[in-house]
């Protein structure tokens, strides 16, 4: 083993039913480096991480950790933690019904003399940890009281606090806003300087170039190569990930902005609100229009969409759909009016983990048809095959359980679920989160295609660039209220200014 190497993985091989997830993959992590692990959906990044942390049992290969004699095989994450390997996953894996302090110390609670949990010390230490990360929050509150972004930061705080040699960050930034990302990067750099090896898995290319020292690229479960960051410019990285030359995300939107008449008005919200999440707002959406909701995380952009869809109940104001006033009590009412919602929290509100890809795809359509008109197996299979093909979902078969798919492919299945209902109005909340570049473009194209077919779309994304490419109008949200709309001169600059609260909007 080289002197400054903390972790080597050699020849790691692992198969899922019907899919070779990893094929003879090597990986080396040195002390004090931030090492990006890159690849498209299903390339095997998460699987490799899970082999390292003991969640998946690999079939062949060896793992060596600095300071430990002989090959290491972890049987659980606890096992891995004891050996100095800590992880923060793509989706927050903490207990929402426990307090922040309990989450930080779960499994390693400070004990009193009598062997009971020392709550005082736990709360005090928790406060210190959070303060060290510039987060002054009430650590005795339940985790679920905090936003997804904060929960993620807490998960990172937990991992950081456990004296680790190897810190794995699996898509940690996908639910953070720019400010929080910067904070996290600061933290990562200071950890690096302390000699921690950090494995950073992400889909954001900019972030890789912002913090990483080295890149390892995987494709279809195989190692493509390991490169120092300076030797692998962006375009080459994308090419390595996709296995082909790639012209950077080209402009796919036509330049002429469409004109909408009042007759085409699809959604007309007046003064709708939900206490505690979104203040009264007005919003108009026409047939064939893509409306972007933009704002910082927690600004109310998801919440606005949820009120229209009836996922959160509208408490004031009115909603007109195609000119007719309607009352929506439950999502099913909205669905019967031709709506669909792709929620941002895929794990909690999107996938039905233990059902197959087929069942997940037909679910919404079946719910709409009602309990007594079950889709025949033939129809179900046809629908599943259609969307697996159309969205290029990587799955062993349509009967594979959705939880065995990679995050991006799960997202595509949920997207397929809504397309199957043939909605007239679709709300897409972070549809491209955790999805690779190639598919991102496909989804953006799909959104524009839907608009062309005369459907209305609400598009929510943390990436402004992506919204600029697809939206013809943007609504800006700040602190739980809609503060303005931008219809003309949509550029990164105008949108950023509006979000930050400049002079020209309102």
């Amino acid at each position, binding site marked *: 083993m080289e002197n400054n190497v903390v972790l080597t993985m050699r020849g790691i091989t692992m198969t899922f039913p019907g899919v070779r997830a990893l094929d003879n993959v090597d990986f080396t992590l040195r002390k004090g480096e931030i090492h990006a692990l890159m690849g498209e959906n299903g390339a095997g990044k998460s699987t490799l991480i899970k082999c390292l942390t003991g969640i998946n*049992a690999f079939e062949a290969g060896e793992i060596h950790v600095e300071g430990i004699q002989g090959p290491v095989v972890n049987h659980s994450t606890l096992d891995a933690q004891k050996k100095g390997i800590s992880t923060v996953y793509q989706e927050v894996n903490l207990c929402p019904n426990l307090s922040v302090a309990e989450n930080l110390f779960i499994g390693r609670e400070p004990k009193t003399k009598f062997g009971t949990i020392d709550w005082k010390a736990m709360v005090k230490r928790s406060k210190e940890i959070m303060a060290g990360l510039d987060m002054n929050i009430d650590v005795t509150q339940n985790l679920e009281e905090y936003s997804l972004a904060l929960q993620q930061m807490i998960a990172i705080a937990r991992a950081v606090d456990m004296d680790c040699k190897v810190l794995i960050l699996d898509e940690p930034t996908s639910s953070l806003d720019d400010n929080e990302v910067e904070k996290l990067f600061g933290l990562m750099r200071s950890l690096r300087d302390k000699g921690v090896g950090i494995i950073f898995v992400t889909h954001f290319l900019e972030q890789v170039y912002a913090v990483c020292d080295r890149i390892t690229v995987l494709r279809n479960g195989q190692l493509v190569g390991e490169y120092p960051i300076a030797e692998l410019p962006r375009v080459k990285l994308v090419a390595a990930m996709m296995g082909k030359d790639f012209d950077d995300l080209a402009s796919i939107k036509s330049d002429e902005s469409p004109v909408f008449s009042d007759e085409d008005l699809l959604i007309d919200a007046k003064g709708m609100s939900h206490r505690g999440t979104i203040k009264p707002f007005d919003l108009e959406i026409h047939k064939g229009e893509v409306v972007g909701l933009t704002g910082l995380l927690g600004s109310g952009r998801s919440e606005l969409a949820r009120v229209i869809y009836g996922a959160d109940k509208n408490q004031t104001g009115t909603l007109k759909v195609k000119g007719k006033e309607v009352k929506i009590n439950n*999502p099913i009412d909205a669905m019967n009016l031709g709506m669909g919602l792709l929620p941002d929290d895929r794990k909690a509100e999107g996938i039905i983990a*233990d*059902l197959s890809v087929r069942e997940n795809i037909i*679910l919404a359509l079946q719910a709409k048809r009602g309990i007594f008109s079950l*889709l025949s197996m033939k129809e179900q299979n046809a629908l599943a095959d259609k969307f697996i093909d159309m969205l290029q979902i990587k799955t062993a078969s349509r009967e594979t359980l959705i939880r065995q798919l990679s995050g991006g492919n799960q997202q595509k299945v949920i997207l397929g679920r809504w397309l199957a209902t043939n909605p007239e109005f679709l709300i897409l909340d972070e549809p491209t989160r955790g999805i690779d570049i190639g598919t991102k473009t496909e989804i953006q194209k799909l959104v524009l295609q839907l608009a062309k077919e005369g459907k209305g779309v609400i598009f929510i994304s943390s990436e402004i660039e992506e919204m600029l490419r697809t939206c013809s109008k943007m609504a800006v949200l700040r602190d739980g209220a809609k503060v303005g709309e931008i219809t003309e001169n949509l550029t990164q600059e105008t949108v950023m200014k509006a979000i930050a609260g400049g002079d020209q909007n309102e």
Partner: protein
Amino acid sequence: MNKMKKITSMPLFLPIFCMLLVMAANIVYDISCGNFALNFFSISVRNGVLYGRLIDILNRGSEIAILAIGMTLVVSASAGTDISVGSVMALSASMCCMILAGYGNASVNELANPLLLGVLGGILIGCVCGAFNGFLVAYLSVQPMVATLILFSAARAIGLLLCNNLIVYVRVDSFKMFGGYLGFLPTPIVIAAVCIVIAMIVLKKTALGLYVQSVGINKKASRIAGLNSARFIFLCYVVCGLCAGIAGIVGASRISSADSNNIGLNYELDAILSVALGGNSLGGGKFRLAGSIIGAYTIQAITTTLYALGVSSDVAPVYKAIIVIIIVTVQAPPFKAYLARRSAKKALAKGGAAA
């Protein structure tokens, strides 16, 4: 090797395997007694009705099988169990007998009310109990164990109240029929079979199965996808109550009385165990009804076998517990994972040797 794998990975392999194991134990015992006629499988006709140990298992297992239908749905939808079904059986029996005998009468030889009224009354009170449980769980988010604990302790007492603190005997042939014989077959077998067939058809022809599983796995996501989660959880408890009601009437008819303290005693545990033995996770979500049904008859087979082996009914639970431990261990995921790891290692070693 491959063929073997195919068979073992079939969804109902384990429940069926366990059932066969119990049967094999019977055969070995019969042979070791020098009885090659195989007592266990012999079915004979005496007095114009079927006799035999198999028939006995099917007959006595009827109530558990009926309860297992409802319990499977409840477990799947709410990730909890309905522990009140045994007590609700007793209540249903009391209600039925009270109607048939007339309030306050302890023993009758003639029906006070039409038979159908009594049966419907029993079934209805079962549904009401189910609706009560379902309301608490689905709409008030009370934990299933706690919610059903209420009727677990109260239902028998309510049954006694209905019967004016008496054990009501209904000595009428038409009522005894439910626990007796229909032609040459024991009636409980027929009733259980009808219930099972109806449940299977409903699951096959409607989207109920998909809805219930979806709600059981992820309530929030199911709601976003247009399912009224609370309504389906409620419905599952009502069905469970309905099943308890039917089972209660069968139980009462067997002894032609409403013995509120003994009818359905500890049946809730057997019903829950059936679901688990059927390879269904008690954590909710995916379920296989056929597994639960096989599980129910397996439990009865174990009980009947133990009695046939001459184990006294006081000690039988010990042996039953041992058998259940073995069956549950074989089905446990860590054990399966251990077997999978072992076979993978073996395959790898073989591959290495070949190379």
